[in-house]
């Protein structure tokens, strides 16, 4: 299989879906002439023109609201946030409009749109620019929340998200855009279903549920622990809402141990949700309490050494697995 970068995988998904469906358009800050703050939309303006690749002013609440109105009236907007940190000024439109319209109209109106952009800490951009927003948006019925960790998932899940009839919060990894990985050929049109987890590595020693950037820490930990004879089973939910709880519970029943690894803060969120499901549905199978590896419970500090401490690391995954394995 060919290898492309995460950023290119996203771009291919946008290109293919915009070619396939004339109602799909991209709107946001810097998406057109600048070709995206992270160059995801490179070449799109040249191919599709200003009608469908729309540069907006710095007005997240404005263009998110426009997206909602366009989605309700027959189009499929893709709203790019330069980063998800800036979505907070558009929170009202995402939560009180996009997520509500279908239900509040008794199913008569639909809001098929994708909000997408980079999520999580980058490198030393400090507290206001380092949010992992997954806990905020997963709490909202009416929103799908998707968070791909690999180029293949980025492409296949974005294509499915664009075709989805409900609004999707699509959380890309700010530090993953350069990541290379295997992706099927362009003509394969791979659609990865929403709400289906991926078992990225099989093992019987301990289940590690991880998504986004720390998924890669989990995979690295699995390599290291294999040398010690501990075989991790790494499960990437990929979609945080709906959450593939069956896949997680199935894995825990096999390994009898579970560590949940995520970049969001430890208070609540999908991390806590997964622990809740595991304790209810696999209680009798657990040989140890479930451990979590999360960001520390503080606003992100700026200093490099502090930032490294706050974010989940491979070392912390190793410690957690050893703790639940009593080794």
């Amino acid at each position, binding site marked *: 299989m060919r290898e492309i970068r995460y950023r290119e995988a996203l771009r291919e998904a946008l290109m293919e879906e915009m070619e396939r469906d004339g109602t799909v358009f991209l709107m946001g800050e810097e998406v057109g002439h600048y070709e995206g703050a992270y160059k995801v939309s490179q070449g799109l303006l040249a191919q599709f023109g200003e009608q469908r690749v729309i540069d907006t002013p710095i007005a997240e609440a404005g263009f998110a*609201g426009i997206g909602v109105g366009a989605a309700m009236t027959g*189009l499929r907007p893709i709203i790019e946030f330069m980063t998800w940190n800036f979505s907070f000024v558009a929170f009202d439109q995402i939560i009180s409009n996009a997520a509500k319209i*279908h239900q509040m109209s008794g199913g008569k109106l639909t809001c098929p749109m994708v909000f997408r952009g980079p999520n999580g800490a980058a490198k030393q951009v400090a507290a206001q620019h380092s949010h992992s927003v997954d806990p905020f948006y997963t709490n909202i*019925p009416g929103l799908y929340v998707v968070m791909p960790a690999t180029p293949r998932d980025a492409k296949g899940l974005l294509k499915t998200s664009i075709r989805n009839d*409900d609004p999707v919060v699509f959380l890309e990894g700010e530090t993953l855009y350069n990541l290379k990985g295997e992706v099927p050929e362009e003509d394969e049109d791979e659609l990865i279903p929403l709400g289906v987890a991926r078992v990225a590595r099989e093992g019987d020693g301990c289940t590690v549920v991880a998504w986004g950037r720390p998924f890669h820490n989990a995979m690295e930990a699995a390599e290291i622990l294999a040398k010690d004879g501990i075989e991790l089973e790494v499960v990437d939910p990929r979609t945080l809402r709906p959450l593939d709880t069956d896949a997680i519970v199935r894995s825990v029943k096999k390994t009898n141990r579970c560590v949940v690894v995520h970049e969001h803060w430890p208070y609540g969120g999908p991390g806590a949700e997964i622990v809740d499901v595991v304790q209810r549905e696999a209680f009798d199978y657990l040989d140890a309490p479930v451990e979590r590896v999360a960001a520390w419970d503080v606003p992100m500090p700026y200093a490099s050494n502090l930032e490294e401490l706050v974010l989940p690391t491979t070392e912390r995954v190793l410690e957690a697995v050893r703790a639940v394995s009593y080794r």
Partner: protein
Amino acid sequence: MQPGRAEKRWMYETMLLSRRYEEAIEKIYLEGKQPRFDMAAGPIPGEMHLSNGQEPCAVGVIAHLEAHDTVTATHRPHHQAIAKGVDLKEMTAEIFGKKAGLSGGRGGHMHLLDPRVNFVCSGIIAQGLGPALGAALSRTMQGKPGVAVAFIGEGAVNQGAFHETMNLAALWNLPLIVVVEDNAWGISVSKKDSTAVERNHVRAAAYGIPGHFVPDNDPIAIYDVAGEAIARARRGEGPTLIEIETDRLAGHFMGDAEQYRPEGEKDALFARDPIPRLRDQMLAAGELSAEDVASIDAAVARRIDEAVAFARESPYPEPSDALEHAFHPVT
């Protein structure tokens, strides 16, 4: 632009329907809620924001709209919904929280949504502006005719969403008309205590678009100004801001003691009630006869009776309906 006789009659009849409708709703709303006001009791639960006094804004603007034109309304939407042609029976059932309501009892009176006539509401101040502009963009991108009208109150003008939407509408020259129903009160805070400018239509200058002020809650004057603005939008000449001086004859919501109103204000408002004013003008001009007035009264009463009976007789949603429509069914 002046309304023809039939249009004028429609405006009068629609204003009256809205007024009588709200009078009926007001009575029903109070059933079971007294002597001690209990918002959760009675056949209509929750909050109730009446639009009586503001009917001229709805009819003067919406007289120019087709079903394919979009209207986004506010938490005070009855007059606009009725003028836009939202089904009165289903709207009433929705307000009662019944299964036969527009949204199956999921929306209530602040969230009347009817895609058949492109009418949506939002209970959040200024939230409808972006979606209205989105609908205008969408029609334009799809090469379909249609304008969008965002109704807001004067309080919404102070929200950030107003500025973002106005700037984008002007920048992209889209067919949007923003109608500010200035009833002088944001709940209990007067406009002069919340707003840096005396009149909000002057803000249009900030976006380089036309801004108009219509004084005196006059449906005919509103018709004139709105007609020009909508025709202009249909010609592709871009957005317009219209500020209308109107009156909120009731409190912000039912149960509001209105102690913030100056002495005598309410009497003055009722003395210039726009509905009898238009009726008397039309009678004097020979555009309505006493028989017309009586037959309009009867027709309006009949429609309201039918709508209320429909709502009362409709069943409540099934328990299982609570789980419907948060997401599309997974196929």
